[in-house]
């Protein structure tokens, strides 16, 4: 067991535990926080996988934007969902079963696929070149510019959509409250 593997195991265990806590914790706020922990764990994993850029992006995008947004919304809707209520719905058993079945299926799948048995990382890579290559590939017309553009359009649409949905003026509840 090299030190790196040890580190990996530690982080992985921590993240998994955090993930479990996200799912199981009663207080929504705690769940949000555990989520942030999971995200941080994954960022570290990215570092382990030599994908430094992705790690930083993970932190910047997830932790700073999405997690905070979630926390904000949690705060907004805190009043309604007191901790006392049942936090798991009726057929959680089925959900659990599905998750486990899926997990078993995935494992079985992995055993069958030969490519997954590779032990060692195939190539040493230079971070710099990699980052340039990634940047170029995103805008290279015969590589991945289309997904890149589509993603940008998607973000724009999401932006406008969420604004429209959450726009306070004109929304029924505003009028309800005022009237």
């Amino acid at each position, binding site marked *: 067991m090299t030190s790196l593997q040890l580190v990996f195991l530690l982080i992985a265990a921590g993240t998994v535990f955090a993930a479990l806590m996200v799912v199981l914790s009663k207080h929504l*706020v705690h769940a949000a*926080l555990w989520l942030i922990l999971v995200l941080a764990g994954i960022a570290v994993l990215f570092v382990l996988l030599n994908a430094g850029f992705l790690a930083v992006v993970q932190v910047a995008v997830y932790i700073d934007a999405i997690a905070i947004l979630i926390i*904000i919304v949690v705060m907004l809707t805190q009043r309604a969902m007191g901790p006392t209520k049942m936090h798991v719905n009726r057929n959680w058993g089925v959900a659990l079963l599905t998750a486990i079945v899926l997990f078993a299926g995935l494992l079985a799948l992995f055993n069958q696929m030969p490519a997954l048995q590779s032990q060692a990382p195939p190539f040493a890579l230079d971070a710099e070149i990699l980052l340039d290559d990634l940047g170029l590939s995103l805008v290279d017309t015969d590589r991945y510019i289309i997904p890149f553009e589509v993603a940008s359009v998607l973000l724009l649409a999401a932006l406008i959509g969420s604004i429209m949905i959450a726009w306070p003026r004109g929304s029924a509840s505003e009028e309800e409250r005022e009237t």
Partner: protein
Amino acid sequence: MPFDINDPFVWFGEWFRGLLENLGLAPGAVEFIQTLLGAFVLGTAALVATFFLIWAERKLVARIQDRLGPNRVGPYGIFQTFADALKLVTKELITPTGADIVPYNLAPLLAVMSVVGVWAVIPLAPRLTGSDINVGVLYAVSIGAVGTLGIMLAGMSSNNKYALLGAFRTVAQMLSYAVPMVLALLVPVLLAGSMGMVQITEAQHAYWFIVLTPFAALIFFISSIAEVGRAPFDLLEAESEIVAGFNIEYSGLRFGMFFVAEFLHAFTISALTATLFLGGWQGPGASEYPLLGLLYFFVKTTAVYFVVIWIRGSFPRVRIDQMNSLNWKLFTPIALAALMFTAVAEKMVTEFSLNRMLVHLGSNLLLFAIVLTALRSYARARRREQEGLALRKSNLQTGSSQTQP
């Protein structure tokens, strides 16, 4: 390795590694300890420096406000900050009931961590940087964002409506100002062709980026001040506002941490501005004598810090809606425009091999002119509207007294 004046840090590093290896540690462990020690030294240096920063700021602001400032404790009040620190440390750490313990205690840590974390990537001298990662700029931004998270947690977990409200407003401000800051940040990245701080500083060997893109530098500087929540944009925890913003429920050392984090953050952004736009440790002879580079870096940073304090002392506070509209209606479009202009200019420079400085400066000035005309027409329209309003109000009064013809 003999002591070499022009490369003292490397020499020191080598000497220290030799020392450890003699102790018989494994190379990995040596590497680990070395980085750990390095990080420790950098962190404490930053925190210790804060004391002097606070003192300097209080002195300067006082001078601006035509008063003496702290002069009792130690010569020129130099130890005033230590006294305050001592006071804070001795205060009782009160935890409000119903507060969410974990996030409540985690918040101050995150705040300080986010500020100190930035220093890891700032290149102090030609070969002296925390860690030269190729996504340095992005790292700095994201670590800064973690600070927002800390504030959020503080506000949320202190079971206090006002704290929550204050936290919301702070987060809103920081999040919204992050956008123009990052966009303006991209300009030097564009110019340098890489996100690594070291590469950016080296790229400014010929021209400092402030020379090439002053407008982008200005946008970056103002939005980062807003990001910190100081000076004109510090209404969040201003006295006349809602109590003390998110750190109401904090006392003692936790409050101290927030306090330190805030001041250090101001110094950090000035360091960032210095590295990105003022060439960091660039200066005559810096590459031969790294120590000289270090000196240049600190001079530039303090200069920028001085400007920050200067602004804090002289500008009136900005209202919340003005701040937001300023950001979304002015800074973000300008930042985007600046980024596009610079990209076009850069392309022209490489295509037609024109003089780099002239082209960039020209594009910046052009952008500046465009913005000015837009602002002037907007202002004139508003003024005419105001007069129209006033006119109507005035003839309303005269009208009521006279009978309409």
